[in-house]
């Protein structure tokens, strides 16, 4: 199983899709154009501070709100390695998997880490933070299949025999 380490950005409960990427910027042409505005209603400076490999740790119901797939895409575009939250809203969850953004559910980590902490993630097994272990479960097989194919687009390309 894959293991990596990263710096924590700590966010609260109910981080909605309008916070992740406000409607105002949705008609910009590319996700790269939108990325600088990620999280701007809540923390306008955050997008500029995130560096590739960082990890977002949030409370419950991360990604609630609209179906905008730009939400996981801008997070990925900022170089976030994975999002760990108490729980995820369902459309966001599907969109993230379909775009190959790793999501991990853990209810306890949020209260046990501080922003700037470095944590280690052992995918499918545990998170190590401040000397403690936080167990994580693995995803259902059908989702692993999509992740394994490299996202839904690639899975469909395979279906259409162009890969």
């Amino acid at each position, binding site marked *: 199983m894959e293991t990596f380490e990263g710096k924590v950005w700590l966010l609260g409960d*109910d981080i*909605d*899709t*309008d*916070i992740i990427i*406000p*409607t*105002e910027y*949705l*008609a*910009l*042409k590319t996700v790269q154009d939108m990325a600088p505005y990620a999280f*701007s*209603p*809540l923390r306008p400076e955050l997008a500029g501070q995130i560096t590739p490999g960082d990890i977002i740790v949030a409370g*419950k*119901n991360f990604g*609630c*709100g*609209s*179906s*905008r*797939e730009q939400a996981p895409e801008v997070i990925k575009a900022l170089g976030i390695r994975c999002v760990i939250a108490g*729980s*995820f*809203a*369902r*459309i966001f969850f*599907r*969109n993230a998997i*379909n*775009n190959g953004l790793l999501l991990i559910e853990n209810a306890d980590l949020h209260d046990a880490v501080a922003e700037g902490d470095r944590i280690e993630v052992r995918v499918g097994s545990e998170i190590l933070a401040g000397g403690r272990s936080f167990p994580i479960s693995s995803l*259902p097989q*059908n989702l692993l299949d999509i992740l394994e194919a490299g*996202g*839904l*687009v690639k*899975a*469909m*390309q395979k*279906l*259409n*025999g*162009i890969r």
Partner: protein
Amino acid sequence: MGATLIEKIIRRNTGIGTAKAGDIVTVNASRVMIHDIFIPFVADKFEEMGFKKIWDPDKVVLIYDHLVPASQIDDTRHFKVGDAFAEKYGPIHVHRSDGICHQLMPELGYVKPGDVVFGTDSHTVTYGCVGAFSTGIGYTEMASILGTGKLWIRVPETIRVNVNGQLPDGVTAKDVILTIIGDLRADGATYQSLEFIGDTFDHMSVDSRMTISNMTVEAGAKCGLFKPDLRTALYSGLEDDEVLEALIPDDDAVYARVLNYRAEDFEPVMACPSQVDNIHPVRELAEKDIAVDQVFIGSCTNGRLEDLEAAAAVLYGQHVAPFVKLIVTPASRSIYRRAADAGILDVLMEAGAIVTHPSCGLCCGRTGGILTDGEVVVATNNRNFLGRMGTSKVQIYLSSPITAATCALTGKITVPEGVD
């Protein structure tokens, strides 16, 4: 073992007679909806995936509503891409300025009881009002459905919400769903189906049910379903009763949770800044003397004829408070025309309202009454997230059209007249 309503719909759709909560099944899309904001992304992904044709063009509905009228220079690019996509892979159904997608889908008969429908918008859950399983998805999944006609889903568990009795005067479906969301919290129904049963709902118009289904996603729900009945049959133009009979949840269905309410206990409420589950009775807020700068009546939640009529009844012969803006955006072309014909629009105009063309308007926060720091808006739509209608220092309160119209008259948060 008995089945819930969502299990019945999925069994009917898949032919898997044993499908139950927790199962992962592949469903057949009865219809799909794509709106203007996401069509360029859907079109890109569709081609990137290598599809050459749409599985069934007649089942695809493309609706321009978020960017109507265009307010930014690149907005019309979305129409251009949409028109080109329709031209290349059609004939699909295209609506270019007829109203909000979630209003049009049931209103124009694109969604019928028992259907399974996906849309590139979280409020696709609205179609549960006619007993259809409908839910929002991203544009990548939409592209894959356009090619295959299918999508995998996990059959959701169900939270059953029983409401019986008669709602008090001045209390509407909006107050009911806001109260339920406050009780469930914003993630209380995540991945789950909400099933609304009881004589209160039996006596509700399909329009009011639409308000309730529309907001179920604010509790995280995958769908919010009403058992189709004669009202539904009339609304959807059903010709036989087969569907109605097939879509009755079993008495021994298994529910994850059951909530029971007495209709008489509901009162006018508001979702306070900046979470939809931050619910407080209007009577408590009214004591705080909260000045209101703007009122918005519209959206797929509350822009229907009965909503405009309720607002007009409050405003009739009076004028909105000085310096308060009242913006009214009917949910569809046909609602606008019926409201015009019934004299409702004129009552609203006489009271000082700004009546706009049917579209998403202020609810999607791109135009239609954007606000700035320190301003307070009372709105009838479905979300009050930080920054949704302007800067992050705008305070958004969500309410029913009756409460909203009352606030427009007084210029502050006020309990509607006739409420005990």
